[in-house]
């Protein structure tokens, strides 16, 4: 068992107003995997992310990066923020300049890198996020999807090992969401650990390797997405179940076992393929 890239031990955080967002929360993020964080509004997802990036400091408990407790001095925070990149939900709250080139250069400059290296990284991030063609345009003339990609470029230029994205698919149309998925898959293949917050159970079921499910500032459950998201307790808390898992279950009850041959459909398309495969076998055994 390797050390989790990020772990939280008995972490509690209470806001100055007295609202306890996280209470004795423990969880771990496995290196190189895709983790989805789920939970109802106000369950503590945003607070959790702020803690992981050092924006907030827990009153109780320990957070570890690569097995070492976080340090909250200037150097420690800089190291943490280099390793753990954070993409906010609203691009307008992240992009500070009307020029995305300037915006992307901000993070690497704070890391104190030499100018040539920074310019390299900015160009690379622009290419990676397919923004080279629009880099000349002002931020206010970019589409929502482009602004979102610019935010990610600004974080990627810092070359983090862990990328946290708060609701990355919110507000994207299906085409943009699909393109964005490709971008995330690429990052995953490059070895980046990805953490996203989402309300979309189907997406979590299709995309994530692992899930962390929060309930009122506590950990409800964590583990493999395919195992956790089908639990009745999870359905109860989140108010729904992944559609594909539900269909699979109902089909199994009616005698069509789509999970045969160890196959595990995670998306609608995969389920349809499994059904076609089955019906072919029935016609032509």
């Amino acid at each position: 068992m390797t050390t989790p890239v990020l772990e939280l031990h008995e972490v509690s955080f209470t806001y100055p107003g007295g609202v306890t967002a996280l209470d004795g929360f423990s969880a771990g993020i496995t290196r190189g995997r895709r983790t989805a964080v789920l939970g109802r509004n106000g369950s503590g997802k945003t607070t959790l992310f702020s803690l992981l990036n050092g924006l907030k400091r827990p009153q109780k408990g320990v957070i570890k990066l690569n097995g070492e407790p976080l340090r909250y001095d200037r150097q420690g925070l800089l190291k943490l923020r280099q390793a753990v990149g954070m993409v906010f939900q609203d691009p307008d709250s992240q992009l500070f300049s009307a020029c995305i080139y300037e915006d992307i250069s901000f993070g690497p400059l704070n890391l104190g890198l030499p100018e040539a290296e920074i310019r390299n990284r900015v160009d690379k991030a622009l290419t990676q996020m397919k923004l080279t063609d629009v880099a000349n345009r002002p931020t206010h003339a970019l589409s929502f999807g482009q602004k979102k990609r610019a935010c990610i470029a600004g974080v990627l230029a810092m070359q983090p090992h862990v990328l946290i994205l708060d609701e990355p698919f919110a507000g994207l149309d299906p085409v943009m969401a699909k393109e964005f998925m490709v971008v995330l898959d690429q990052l995953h293949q490059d070895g980046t650990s990805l953490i996203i917050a989402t309300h979309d159970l189907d997406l979590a079921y299709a995309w994530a390797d692992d899930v962390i499910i929060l309930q009122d500032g506590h950990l409800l459950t964590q583990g493999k997405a395919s195992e956790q998201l089908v639990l009745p307790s999870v359905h109860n808390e989140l108010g729904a179940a992944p559609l594909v898992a539900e269909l699979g279950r109902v089909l199994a009850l009616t005698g069509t076992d789509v999970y045969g041959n160890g196959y595990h459909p995670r998306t609608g398309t995969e389920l349809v393929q499994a059904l076609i495969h089955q019906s072919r076998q029935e016609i032509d055994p």
Partner: protein
Amino acid sequence: MYIDTYAYSNRWRKVHPGEKGLFALLCLTSALLSRTALLPLAVAAITITMTVLGAGIPWRNYLRLALLPALFLLWSCLALAVSFSGGEIHLAEIPFLHLTISLSRQGIDQAELALARSLGASLSLLFLALTTPMTEIMGLLRSLGAPRLMIELMTIAYRQIFVFLEITGQIRAAQEARLGYASPRLAMKSLAGLTGNILLRSLSRARQNHQALLARGYDSKLRFLSPPHNWSPRNLAAAVAAGITLNILALAIHP
């Protein structure tokens, strides 16, 4: 908002901002240094040609943008031309109560020069504004050693103007959809709601922005690099030659 759109889409967008800035600055100084009305008018003609034919700004919209300061200048110069006390050589006199409104040769000359100078100067700046995006002008100021705080404020303010406009538009549309502006009384009430709402939104946005900056290692210095631009020796030589010639002429020509 025309200015902003053209600044990003004109034909000379890719020209080094330093070249455009230098040219505009030299045009500006020659217009201001000139002691005859002719030279600033020539500067105006040159900058108009450069902006419309060079950078390709449609002349109709250019006219609309240039007309506002031009009309303003015209009215103020009319006021300069007439005097209430009366000079030595009067071209015309109108008795007005116990004063005399008089028009003198000297006054006309003075007004003419002021009008020409300000027109030349403002059109030089309009050339820069229409061909160079705000962020590049700020980059230029930065490389000239403008104070860091000023540049940071300008950068954030410029970006936030557009965010602010968008939010305002959204809230206003939502109010209008519920007949918030149906009567003057309702309009006042809605406007008050709009203003209060925007203040709250701005405060929470400022907090979010600060968090997002911190997440990328912000330590109370807003560091960033401007996109690279290539100097063109040909453009630079042309800008300097034209600009210096105009300045020499401005100093040499006496009325």
